[in-house]
C-alpha cells in the first residue's frame, strides 16, 4: 500500500503546485492583479481589463506595460477618478501566447464583464486579441500593436475598433533613412545588411528602409528573415558579420535578439559603422543591463517617446515613475509611456462620451478629435492608426538615451557617427 500512497501523494502535490504556479507563472491562466485605490465615492468603479505578457518571451515588455497601466490608474484615481468613479485594472497573464491572449480577453469580457479593454503587448498578440474585442463590440485601445497587419484584419475593417495610440511602425525608419541619404557621399555607407526576425512588428519598417536605401544607392549585401524566438541567433549574426556590411538595420522585437547580434558581432571583430534596431535598445535599463552600457554606445532605435521628452505630461509621468519605481530617466522602458498613453486616451474618450459605452467610445475616437498623451497628440484614421504620431530616432550616448533625429528638431542632439567600437 505504501507505494500507492506515496505515488498519489506525490502526484497530488505535484498537480496542486503545478496548478497553483501555473496561475502566476507561464501556465497562462489568469493572474488577477488589481491596482485599485480605496474607493472615495459610492459609484461603481470603472473596471478595465487587459492581458499582459508577465511571463514568456515578451515578459520584459509585459511587465513594463503593467507598470505604465498601473501608474496611470494611480494618477487618475488620485485625481478623483473618471466621471466620479474610481478605476480598477484587471490584469491577466497571457505568458506571451497568442492563444492564451484570446482566452484571456474572452474571460475578461464574457465572465468578468469588464467595462473596457486595453491592449496587450506586441502586434503578434494584439491582432488576435482585437478580434475578440471586435466580436463583442468593444473598443480596443492599445499601445503596442503598430504593425500594418493589426489594422488590416477583416475584424477591424468591419468593426473599426482598434485604436493604436503609438506610431504606426511601417514608416518608423523614415527619419533614419532620410538622414543616411543626407550624408555626404564620403560618409554615406556603401553597403547594408537587413536581418529580420519573423514577426509582424519587425519586418515592415526594415523592408521600407531597405527599399528607400537601395533607391539611394546603398547596396544590399544581406537581407534575410530568420525565425523569431529561437535559442540560437549566432549563425544568422555571423553571416551578417561575414557580409562586412557597413550598416546593419536589424528587424528585432526584443532585447535578447539585439544582444545576440551584438555579442556575435563582437566575437567576429565586426563593428558596423551604423547599427539600428527596430526594438530592443528602447527598453531602458533592460537593454543596458544585458548588453552593457559601453556596448550600447551608438545603438540607434526608432520610437515616439523618450524619457527626456519636453512634453509636460511626459515629464510629470517620468517624475511619478521615478518616485514609485526608482532608477534613472534613461532606464525607463518606452513601453511604460505607450501604456500610460492608452489610459490617457481612454480617459478622454470616457469624459467626452459621459460613460463607458463602447459603441460611443468607438464613434468618438473616429470623430477626428485630437487627443493628448505623454507621447504627443493622438488622432485616429478610419482603421485606428495614429495620424499625429511623430517618429524620432534615439541613440545611446554615454549611458544616456537621447533623441538624435530628425536632425534639428526640438530636443535632438548631435548623432554619434560612426558607432564606437565594442567596449568590453
Amino acid at each position, binding site marked *: 500500500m505504501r507505494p500507492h500512497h506515496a505515488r498519489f501523494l*506525490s502526484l497530488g502535490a505535484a498537480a496542486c503546485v503545478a496548478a497553483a*504556479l501555473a496561475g502566476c507563472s507561464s501556465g497562462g491562466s489568469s493572474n488577477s492583479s488589481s491596482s485599485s485605490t480605496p474607493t472615495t465615492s459610492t459609484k461603481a468603479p470603472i473596471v478595465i481589463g487587459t492581458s499582459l505578457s508577465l511571463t514568456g518571451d515578451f515578459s520584459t515588455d509585459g511587465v513594463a506595460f503593467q507598470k505604465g497601466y498601473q501608474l496611470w490608474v494611480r494618477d487618475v484615481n488620485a485625481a478623483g477618478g473618471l466621471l466620479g468613479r474610481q478605476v480598477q485594472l484587471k490584469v491577466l497573464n497571457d505568458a506571451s501566447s497568442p492563444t492564451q491572449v484570446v482566452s484571456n480577453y474572452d474571460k475578461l469580457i464574457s465572465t468578468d464583464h469588464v467595462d473596457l479593454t486595453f491592449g496587450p503587448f506586441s502586434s503578434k498578440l494584439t491582432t488576435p486579441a482585437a478580434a475578440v474585442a471586435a466580436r463583442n463590440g468593444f473598443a480596443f485601445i492599445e499601445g503596442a500593436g503598430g504593425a500594418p497587419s493589426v489594422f488590416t484584419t477583416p475584424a477591424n475593417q468591419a468593426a473599426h475598433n482598434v485604436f493604436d495610440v503609438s506610431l504606426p511602425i511601417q514608416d518608423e525608419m523614415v527619419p533614419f533613412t532620410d538622414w543616411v541619404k543626407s550624408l555626404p557621399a564620403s560618409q554615406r555607407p556603401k553597403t547594408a545588411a537587413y536581418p529580420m526576425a519573423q514577426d509582424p512588428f519587425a519586418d515592415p519598417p526594415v523592408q521600407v528602409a531597405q527599399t528607400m536605401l537601395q533607391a539611394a544607392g546603398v547596396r544590399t549585401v544581406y537581407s534575410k528573415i530568420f525565425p523569431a524566438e529561437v535559442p*540560437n541567433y549566432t549563425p544568422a549574426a555571423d553571416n551578417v558579420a561575414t557580409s562586412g556590411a557597413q550598416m546593419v538595420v536589424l528587424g528585432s522585437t526584443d532585447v535578447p535578439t539585439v544582444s545576440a547580434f551584438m555579442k556575435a558581432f563582437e566575437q567576429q571583430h565586426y563593428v558596423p559603422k551604423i547599427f539600428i534596431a527596430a526594438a530592443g535598445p528602447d527598453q531602458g535599463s533592460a537593454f543596458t543591463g544585458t548588453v552593457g552600457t559601453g556596448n550600447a554606445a551608438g545603438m540607434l532605435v526608432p520610437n515616439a517617446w523618450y524619457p527626456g521628452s519636453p512634453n509636460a505630461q511626459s515629464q510629470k509621468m517620468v517624475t511619478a515613475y521615478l518616485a514609485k519605481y526608482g532608477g534613472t530617466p534613461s532606464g525607463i522602458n518606452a513601453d511604460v509611456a505607450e501604456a500610460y498613453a492608452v489610459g490617457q486616451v481612454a480617459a478622454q474618450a470616457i469624459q467626452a462620451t459621459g460613460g463607458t459605452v463602447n459603441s460611443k467610445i468607438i464613434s468618438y475616437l473616429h470623430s477626428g478629435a485630437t487627443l493628448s498623451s505623454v507621447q504627443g497628440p493622438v488622432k485616429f484614421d478610419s482603421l485606428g492608426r495614429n495620424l499625429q504620431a511623430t517618429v524620432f530616432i534615439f541613440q545611446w550616448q554615454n549611458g544616456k538615451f537621447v533623441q538624435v533625429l530628425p536632425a534639428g528638431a526640438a530636443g535632438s542632439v548631435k548623432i554619434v557617427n560612426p558607432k564606437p567600437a565594442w567596449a568590453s
Partner: protein
Amino acid sequence: MTTKLVHAVVNGVLGGGVYALMAVGLTLIFGVLDVINIAQGVMVVLGAYLSYALSVHLHLDLFLGLLLTVPAMFIIGVVIQWAFIRPLRGRERTSMSLLACYAVAIIIEGILYWAFGPNSITLKASYVTSSVHVFGFYLPYIYLYGFAMAVALVVALYGLLYRTLFGRSIRATMQDQTAARLIGINVNRVAALTFGIGVAVTAAGGMVFGATSGGINPNSGYDLISRLLAVIILGGLGSIGGALAASVFMLTAEAIVDIWQPTWSVAVFYAALVVVLTFRPRGLFGRQEARAQ
C-alpha cells in the same frame, strides 16, 4: 561560398558542443530511469541563473562557479528524483513522470521569476565576447571552452559508466531493473544518483548556454526542450556519445541552411531527425547498441 560553408561547419561543431552539454543529462536520465525529463530545458536555465548569481554577487568566474553549481544541481536532482520520480510505479510510470517533470519545470520557473524577475540576463566574462583568429576565422573562446568541456564530460561519463563499480550498477539497472535488484544492486540509490548526475552536468550546459545566448529569462527553457529531445532521439535514447554526435550533426545542418534560408533552419533541425529515423529508427547510436556497449 566555400568560406561561408566552412564557417557554418565550424559554427555547427562548436554550437553542437553547447547542445551536447545540455543534452547528455537528459539522455543519461532516460537511459537509466526511462524518464523523459521534460524539465531539462528549465534545468538548463536554472544552471545559467545559478552561474549568474555567483558571477554577479560573488564575482566568481563562470567556470570556477561550476565547482559550486554542479554539486548544487546534483543535490537538486537527487531531491527531485526522491520527491517526484521515485514514488511513481506501475505501467503508467513513464507517462506519469512526464506530468511530474512538467510540474517540476513550472515550480522552478516560478521560483526563478520570483527571485530574478522577468528581465533577460546574460552571463558576462572576457572570454564570452573575445575570440581567437584561426585560418581566417574568429573562433569565440566561450564556444571553444564549451566544446572542450562537452568532450571532457562525455569521456568522464563513459569512464564512470565503464570503469567503475557504480557504472556497472548503472548499466545493470539500464538493462534490467529486476535482475539488478536480484544481484543486490540498490536500484533506488542508483536511480537517485543517476538523476542527480544528469541534472548536475546540466549546470555546465546552462552556464555555457547563458553565456552564448543573447539573453535568457525564466521562460527560456521551453524554447529549448523540443530541440534537446530531438537531439537525444537522433543520437539514440540513452547514448551519451550519441548526444554529442547528434548535437554536432543538427547544429551543423542548421548553420548550413542558415546561409541560404534562415527561416528554414529550425525546420531542418527536425527534418534531419525524421530523415535519419526513417533509415535508422534507433537513432545514430540506438538504445540496444548503447546498452550493449
